[in-house]
């Protein structure tokens, strides 16, 4: 948050600034380690690992063994039966629906927001600012809160219980953050570049395609991940705006499966493990983009 600008005054003015690069003595380097924080990190690491370990471990157990309560010991009779049960309960259908919802949401958000952000950055008028402000207002509206009117509206529009009923609201709710990030990125493109393109007689559309989009690829990838994550992980829209089995997505499907399996907890855990795999793979492949997309969830 632009700390560099206000950092200088808070440094003690009586201390002359005379730092030169040198190797610190060993005692000083040891002092830099922070045992309390290291310990906290270690404890938290355990807190994160244990449930995940139990999830994967118990998902390999037959139901009887899991009910015996020895969840921390490696599965004695490891079996993939739970996984095959999940895969035969229509898991691929859930996955397919989820992929469709996610991809269409991303596409919709980008198609709408990229030109809009460009217009807001270039127009600089009072009206563009107003549009931007209205969108920022949307940051303050949490999805669960307006689900009632949304439900009534979606029913009246005749798209209730279709994948569109999930896609449209999800995309709309991803727009404020998307716009915020894209406007921020596009503002960083220097004025000279626009001017030189204008001098060569480029139209706005050409500027958008040949200058703005290539230069804001980092922002675009961030918002794609952000929109994709909120579509991939969203529960409340599919829960309330769809009801039939063929429109189940991963989140509502997991919920249905877990109540269907009941006391067969290992099967539920196998479904949970499977549901995490696509994101885990994505995380390993595109860690940087994913992390900055997650940061976008924070509404910054």
């Amino acid at each position: 948050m632009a700390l560099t600008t206000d950092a200088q005054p808070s440094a003690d003015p009586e201390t002359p600034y005379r730092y030169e690069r040198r190797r610190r003595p060993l005692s000083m380097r040891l002092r830099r380690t922070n045992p309390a924080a290291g310990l906290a990190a270690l404890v938290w690491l355990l807190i994160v690992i244990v449930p995940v370990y139990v999830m994967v471990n118990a998902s390999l157990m037959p139901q009887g063994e899991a009910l015996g309560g020895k969840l921390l010991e490696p599965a004695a009779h490891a079996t993939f039966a739970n996984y095959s049960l999940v895969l035969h309960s229509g898991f691929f259908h859930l996955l397919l629906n989820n992929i469709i919802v996610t991809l269409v949401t991303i596409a919709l958000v980008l198609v709408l927001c990229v030109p809009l952000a460009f217009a807001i950055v270039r127009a600089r008028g009072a009206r563009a600012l107003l549009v931007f402000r209205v969108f920022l207002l949307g940051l303050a509206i949490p999805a669960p809160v307006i689900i009632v009117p949304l439900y009534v509206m979606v029913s009246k529009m005749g798209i209730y219980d279709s994948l569109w009923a999930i896609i449209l609201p999800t995309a709309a709710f991803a727009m404020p953050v998307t716009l915020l990030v894209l406007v921020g990125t596009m503002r960083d493109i220097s004025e000279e570049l626009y001017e030189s393109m204008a001098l060569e007689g480029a139209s706005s559309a050409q500027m958008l395609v040949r200058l703005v989009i290539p230069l804001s690829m980092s922002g675009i990838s961030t918002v794609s991940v952000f929109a994709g994550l909120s579509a991939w992980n969203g529960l409340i829209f599919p829960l309330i705006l769809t009801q039939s089995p063929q429109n189940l997505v991963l989140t509502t499907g997991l919920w249905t499966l877990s109540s269907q399996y009941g006391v067969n907890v290992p099967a539920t855990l196998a479904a949970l493990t499977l549901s995490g795999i696509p994101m885990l793979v994505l995380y390993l492949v595109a860690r940087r983009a994913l992390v900055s997309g997650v940061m976008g969830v924070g509404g910054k």
Partner: protein
Amino acid sequence: MFFGLFAVVPMAYSLFLSFCGNWGGIGSAHVVGAVDWQRLYQDSTIRQATRLTVELTVLSWLFQTPIAMLIGVWAAGRQRNRAVLSAIFFIPLVLSSTAISLLFKALLDPNFGLASSIGPWIGFSNGNILGSPNGALAMLVFVGGWQFMPFHTLIYQGGARQIPKTLYQAAEIDGAGRIAQFFHITLPQLRHTITTSSVLIVVGSLTSFETVFLLTGGGPGSASTTLSFAMYQNAFQDFNYGYASALGTALVAVSTLLSVLLVRLTGFGTMRSTREGM
């Protein structure tokens, strides 16, 4: 246009419905005055839900902020094996709230094992942690923390990386110890980061729905019914859209007010760049 249709219009429509009595979606809605708002003001269930939501918010903040700050600042430095560590740390980020809630519901199932072995340690001899009001609240705070801690840690890590190293060097020359450095440099320099993270925790906890819905179902009884879950129950179990809308509108007003207040109090003025604090 599109955004307006799905976010702004519902907000206005929600305000309208909140004046329509106990309309349940049959026939058309008519304005009947402020009955819902009156009922909202007098409803003891809502009062309890409000208290619970505030408790949940405060406890979540107290739980997440210190730990996230500690680990975030620590992770901003150079450590060995940090890549491996952060990969493991961020596992909760790739799981959905739904998956996380269902996972903990399974783990905390008293018949299934983990809860009955952990329960006695923390004062639940029969392992039925979710069956007690305080246990349910504690688990909501814990599961929320489990899910969002890596995210806030990331925010603090980003914030701490932006603190100029020269400040610490100057302090070291002045003979300031590590703890003094933390309180006089790290903490003041992180104030914007703290605001951002706090606003997110507050708004997130105020409107948390998924964890309550899946993990505790508002129970035992109504002991863990938060405001947004009460709204869901009113709308989709009792089919009283008017009342649920009044509740939702009040919730938006409160959460907006609170975040504006937090932002003002901490002097976090204009957002100059979207990448601030990352």
